[in-house]
């Protein structure tokens, strides 16, 4: 097939998989996939799982094809009849967009974790302040010193305090500071 020959010409290691396999081999970076001929919807979970760069091959601009391109989150599109000019461009674009998307997603995950941690620290600070009748700043210092002493992230110490408080208050008990910690 012309596409395989051209991808090899560009220096890629290409495998043809038809019918579509149940699982993607783990080392696949990029998939070229025809989206508008056969039913391919059942492949979506597998592809979402492996998250390779995906280049759609389309023959039509029918609404069904267009929806498939969006559903599969294609990073590039080539149209049939295939010609060599344009394949490298879509390939490079797809690799770039895939990488960029990956970096953005990782950044968002990190930001979400940070925000979650910050909310926990805030809540734990308020808890400690109320339970021990100290001001917020002293409560925060207490929390931070504990984390430093135990070499644990501030957020996880805060989360432990919150869950301990929730568990104990459910039993009608309350947290108090260990001797000498005040």
């Amino acid at each position, binding site marked *: 097939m012309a596409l395989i*020959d*051209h991808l*090899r*010409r*560009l*220096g890629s290691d290409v495998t043809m998989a038809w019918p579509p396999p149940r699982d993607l081999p783990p080392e696949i970076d990029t998939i070229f996939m025809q989206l508008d001929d056969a039913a391919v919807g059942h492949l979506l979970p597998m592809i979402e799982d492996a998250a390779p760069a995906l280049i759609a091959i389309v023959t039509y601009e029918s609404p069904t094809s267009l929806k498939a391109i969006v559903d599969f989150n294609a990073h590039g599109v080539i149209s049939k009849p295939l*010609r*060599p*000019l344009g394949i*490298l461009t879509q390939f490079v674009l797809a690799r770039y967009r895939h990488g960029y998307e990956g970096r953005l997603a990782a950044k968002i995950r990190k930001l979400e974790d940070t925000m979650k941690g910050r909310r926990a620290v805030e809540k734990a600070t308020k808890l400690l302040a109320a339970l021990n009748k100290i001001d917020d700043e002293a409560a925060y210092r207490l929390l931070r010193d504990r984390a430093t002493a135990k070499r644990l992230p501030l957020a996880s110490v805060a989360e432990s305090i919150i869950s301990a408080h929730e568990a104990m208050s459910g039993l009608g008990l309350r947290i108090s500071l260990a001797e000498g910690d005040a």
Partner: protein
Amino acid sequence: MSGKTQEPWRVGMLFSRTGLSSVNETEHFFGTALAIEEINAAGGVLGRPIAPICYDPGGRSDAFRSLARRLLAEDGVDVIFGCSLSASRKAVLPIIERHNGLLWYPSIYEGFEYSENVLYTGATLNQNSFALADFLLREHGPRIVVIGSDYVYPRESNRVMRDLIESNGGVVIGEHYLPLDASDEALKALVEEIRRLAPDAVFSTVVVQAAERLYRFYADAGIDRRRHPIASLTFAEDQIHVVGAERCSGHILAAPYFQTLDTSVNHRFVSAYKARFGADRPASMWSEAAYAQTHLFALALAEAGATEPQRLGQAALKQTFAAPKGELMFDRDNRHVWLTPGIGVARPDGQFDIVWRSKVPIRPDPYLAASRFEATGLTDSDA
């Protein structure tokens, strides 16, 4: 087949006999013409002579485009021998593909192209630049200035040359581009800049007429060419002849062909060329590539029996021809040819001393998919 046997095979020729690129493209023209005359003198192909229809695009991309269309759509030819500058090839490519023609392209170029409607018979970068970078760093030193005309071939070739130089311990101390039709003042200013930088070598992809003036001004400026040579992939015997041999000695060319190649096939070619076009006209990589590809075409046509581009192209990929530069054949995967890289230093008589030549032909790698930049280009040398 008999009965109509004398009806000729009609083909198109699209080389600029006038305009900025006329020196190189006239060489393409003469090389093609010589081969066609030889083939016809030997009885043609399957008993029919080859009859070329020739147009002169004058080096202008729009003329290349409209004349390619005329050849394919009005004159009804399938096969065009033509183009030299990448700009003109890029201009005709959509026309050739739309009308399903077959372009035989004889020039060196920057690679990164593949079309089922083109056969590429000139060197691509892994067949000239790789060895040249190594040669310049080893023989001349690490400080290199890179210059070029401002279009796709120089930009891409210089990008690759920069990578090669930097991957092998050299430094690009200057990079400059001038328009294809650069003024004398701009060229002289560039020469002055090179004198100021005093590099160990200049790598130039300045082409066509601007290159001829650049080399002239370089000589006039009195720069020592043995110590600060200009190295190129294009400035061959034909342009040296135009500029004057005494002004070009010491400059370097990386190419698969030099007139001084000492083989019996080449001696025959050079004598035939001079007999046909004048004793003082040198052969060069430009005429030889066009000559060789036309003979390959004739072999392919004899096998295919038709000029229909897909059949003819498939047949071409199987042929070998004993060309002046050596055995010539296509790489079936990428439609470019295997070539034996060489490096020549210009002599005071306008010919080249071949100071290095690969012992084996090198596979064309137009997408630089298999070529390693840090690998030494001269490894298989007998330098």
